[in-house]
């Protein structure tokens, strides 16, 4: 059988599988499944044994292909979705201080949240955003949303829609324009923040859906950062937390916390020690810690097991790769 034919066969089998599963979901008989604790542990043991076999083969001089590594990473991320295992989450000082900063805000405080990310960063930042809105709405904080990234305000709307389904929040009957508002995206990066320091309205003449600024009760009396009690930036890069710290915090004295992707977090940690940021949620781990503090179990917590498994696999393959490297006299390539 030719390679092309094999590839087409695999695609056909996968397509049939996907169609059946989807049909099951729509029809209602596929409600998802979960491994028992015993089966979960057996799966983990099998993965460990297979890794030991790979290590043994490597020591024998038989190298594995890169696709095997991809397969293991995929398996290590996927299988924990179905496992009945949980992971202990410890609260780090920077997440605790961030939470304390929000917790001391009295009801009615105005919080500015800047959504500077797009869908690719959503797995890390969306759980943070949902926990943040959940906390704000449950504690009667008024939220103003803006975005320096075009898709940021959309991400905010998605988080708000999800949080509004919570019974405790739905019961509050929160009103758009009074309890929360989405001013939308504005181009100009840090120059937008600079102008907001003197006049919000000049940068956001309308909200996300085109309503003029002065017709929104929550913001019509908000002139600049002096009318904001707390700022929170969800950031995946530039423009993001660095720019907010440089302009809004250092120039205009805004009290601020941030939720960053893990890539960006190390760049922002020095701002905590110097007092420029109150705290940081760093990556998915930060999201899980914040969920723990706010008393919710969201995707941040659920995904941490996959994250940990994937890290273990990466570490295992770093060891195997080094074994291959040194065994090959530092010349052979994997």
């Amino acid at each position, binding site marked *: 059988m030719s390679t092309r034919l094999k590839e087409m066969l695999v695609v056909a089998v996968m397509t049939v599988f996907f169609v059946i599963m989807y049909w099951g979901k729509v029809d209602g008989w596929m409600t998802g499944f979960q491994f028992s604790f015993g089966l979960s542990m057996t799966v983990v043991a099998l993965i460990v044994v297979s890794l030991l076999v790979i290590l043994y083969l490597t020591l024998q001089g038989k190298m594995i292909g890169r696709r095997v590594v991809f397969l293991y990473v995929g398996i290590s*991320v996927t299988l924990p979705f179905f496992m009945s295992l949980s992971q202990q989450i410890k609260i780090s000082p920077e997440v605790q201080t961030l939470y304390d900063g929000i917790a001391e805000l009295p009801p009615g405080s105005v919080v500015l949240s800047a959504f500077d990310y797009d869908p690719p960063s959503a797995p890390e930042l969306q759980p943070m955003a949902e926990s943040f809105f959940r906390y704000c709405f449950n504690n009667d904080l008024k939220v103003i949303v803006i975005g320096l990234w075009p*898709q940021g305000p959309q991400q905010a709307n998605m988080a708000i829609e999800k949080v509004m389904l919570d019974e405790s929040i739905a019961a509050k009957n929160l009103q758009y324009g009074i309890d929360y508002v989405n001013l939308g995206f504005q181009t100009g990066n840090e120059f937008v923040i*600079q102008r907001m320091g003197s006049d919000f309205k000049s940068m956001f003449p*309308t909200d996300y859906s085109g309503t003029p600024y002065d017709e929104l009760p929550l913001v019509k009396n908000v002139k600049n950062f002096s009318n904001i009690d707390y700022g929170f930036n969800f950031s995946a890069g530039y423009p993001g937390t660095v720019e907010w710290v*440089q302009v809004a915090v250092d120039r205009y004295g805004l009290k601020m916390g941030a939720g960053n992707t893990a890539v960006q977090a190390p760049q922002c940690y020095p701002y905590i020690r110097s007092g420029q940021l109150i705290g940081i949620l760093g990556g*998915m781990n930060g999201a899980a810690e914040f969920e723990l503090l706010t008393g919710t179990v969201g995707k941040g917590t659920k995904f941490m097991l996959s994250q940990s498994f994937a890290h273990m696999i990466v570490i295992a393959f770093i060891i195997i790769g080094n074994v291959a490297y040194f065994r090959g006299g530092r010349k052979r390539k994997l």
Partner: protein
Amino acid sequence: MEHFAIWVAAFLTMGIFSFLYKDNAWYKLCEAIFVGISAGYWFVTLFWDNIYGKFWVGKGDDSMLYIGAFLGLLMLMRLVPKIGWISRWPLAFIVGATAGFYLINYFSSNVMRQVEDTIMPLLGPDYSAGAYDIIGNIVIAVGTFSGLVYFFFSKEHKGAFGATAKVGIFFLMITFGASFGYTVMSRMSLLIGRLDFLFGDWLGMIK
């Protein structure tokens, strides 16, 4: 429509993943769709939020906007080869203004504030620091000093000076390692997000 949208999203996700097997037409199609839609999305968003939002809804009540719009129009002169040189004026303005803006911001926030935070008593103000903080302060002091020594190239890295520079290298390596670890964590998060979509939202296999 909902079914169609979720199948399109799954088709595109699988297409991007197919690159892990090998480069192929499916992957290239998904890549081209992504680039095209991103460009279109940016254009539409910028048009409605800026040109429409500021000059139509906002009625252009800020006169500075007209100067910006004029400079923007000059930038488009690049499309006419004969007068393309005019586009250098707004470009010069952008470079100058941005450089000035950055100079102040970075010097104030990333230099002075960080230096101020680094120069501090090892035992804390009024000797109030705990053991954990004292160790942290010593690590910062030693790391900053040795790191700076490593980047001092006016003297040959030999003897005690060279040894200090080597300590600096260790600190730099630890920093890069931590950054790399965070990057791996971030990339894994993206993968987790997509696989959660495939197995959860699309196929409904996750409980």
